[in-house]
């Protein structure tokens, strides 16, 4: 094995906090700069990873409190070393990690999922311009997610700024999350039966007005529903 490969094999676990410095020094020799300087690096890497998580999940971590957040981020980093060049992917598995923790309330994991999708939708690669043929389509950045708690109402209220506030109410519902084309901002909207009918019809390449009428809507109401969803940016293009 080359000296460089030995260096890599030692540094990888060391930088991830999974190998002690004295083991590395046994294999590679001491740094001319001294052990203290070498020992600086795993902390630097962990600090960088924690920074990415903190930027992605400000509300979740504020609710957890600083000490608990620090502990959870440390465990998360050990269990899920970053595996992608895109730095924000450092935080991709954080909601699932919280969900798997019996010591974290379910709704806090939901709050983390809410924050993650806000990021995902904001940066979604899909364009939010109408297709070249002008045909009505569902905004391609749209995601539909189930929630067990009324996280959006809690986020919208002043409760999210108060670490002692009451948790959100239990209320099972679906949310659509998408990027508003003009402002590039992320929109959350509860899935209504009409949204479900219109989106399902468009995804099946069916006329959404006909689908709404089949479901019992008068033609004018069906058109109003679609006009409203276009105005909100959930639908793009024209009928």
């Amino acid at each position: 094995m080359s000296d460089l490969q030995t260096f890599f094999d030692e540094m990888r676990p060391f930088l991830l906090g999974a190998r002690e410095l004295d083991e590395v020094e046994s294999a590679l020799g001491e740094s001319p700069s001294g052990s203290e300087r070498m020992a600086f690096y795993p902390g630097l890497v962990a600090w960088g990873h924690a920074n990415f998580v903190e930027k992605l999940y400000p509300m979740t971590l504020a609710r957890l409190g600083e000490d608990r957040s620090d502990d959870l981020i440390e465990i998360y980093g050990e269990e899920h070393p970053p595996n992608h060049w895109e730095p924000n992917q450092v935080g991709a598995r954080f909601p699932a990690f919280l969900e798997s923790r019996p010591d974290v309330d379910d709704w806090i994991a939901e709050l983390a999922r809410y924050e993650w999708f806000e990021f995902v939708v904001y940066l979604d690669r899909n364009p939010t311009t109408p297709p070249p043929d002008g045909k009505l389509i569902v905004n391609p950045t749209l995601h539909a997610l189930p929630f067990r708690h009324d996280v959006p109402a809690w986020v919208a209220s002043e409760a999210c700024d108060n670490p002692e506030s009451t948790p959100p109410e239990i209320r099972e519902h679906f949310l659509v999350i998408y990027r508003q084309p003009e402002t590039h901002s992320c929109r959350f909207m509860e899935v209504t039966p009409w949204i479900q009918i219109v989106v399902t019809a468009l995804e099946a390449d069916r006329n959404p007005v006909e689908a709404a009428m089949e479901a019992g809507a008068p033609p004018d109401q069906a058109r109003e529903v679609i006009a409203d969803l276009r105005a909100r940016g959930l639908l793009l293009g024209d009928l």
Partner: protein
Amino acid sequence: MKRFSQIHDITLAGHGVGLRRPHFEDTDQFIGTVDFLEIVPENFMAFGGEPLAVLDRVRTTHPIIPHGVNLSVGGDMELDSQYLADLKALCDRIDAPFFSDHCCYTALGGAWFHDLLPMPFTEEAVAHIASRARQAAERVERPLVLENISYYAVMPGSTMEEAAFLSAILEEADCGLLLDVNNIVVNSHNHGEDPEAFLDAIPLERIVQVHMAGHSELNQPSIRFDDHGSAISDEVLALYKSLIRRVGAIPTLMEWDNNIPAVEVLIAETQKTRTAEAEALRTAEGA
């Protein structure tokens, strides 16, 4: 001797700043105040939405230079094909004359550290990086410009000085140099080296661009820390002037990545580098 920029028809000039997300709504203030903008391509190349819309807007007003952080040219994994394809597409979109990244590794064995980590200064590492740098430049279809990083420990097994290591890579890979003056100052403090001697030892004709930034001091360990979180220090400005006296005007960029200030502050920092450059050029003429 011809400069690397002349050989590759790189006409970038003046004083620029790094475009960061907090400034997305203020980009009009860069018009007429800075000469070019630098972006971190990883913050744009996999995304749509606002970042791409902002990029399309600013590229009509400024030259845009991509300065990457995750090529991991020193790493042990194959260069990532999708990463390079996305990077090339972004470079094409902004008509980038070159792309830059750091002389370091950021990933090993499938784990990404998202930090700029130093290599051992060895002949083997020179050959390793040079080969990968050539591959990257071929696949992105434009010159690669490598930056000297700040490092807090000389890696075990090193057999060369940093300047000799960097110079050998640049020559063997035929790369340009993005000279970070702040990093030279940080390293000179942390390793007891003479920053002027560093300038003496590197191929100045390969410098394509200069980075300026702020740094801080830490206690444990007792080091200068390259945090890009403050204004340019007088010490860094003094070394910059020394560089300009040696090589003339070079495109110069102010980097500020932590505690990012208002656009006005960034623009004021570029005014500092403009003034320092002008003073250095006057001194050089008078010498």
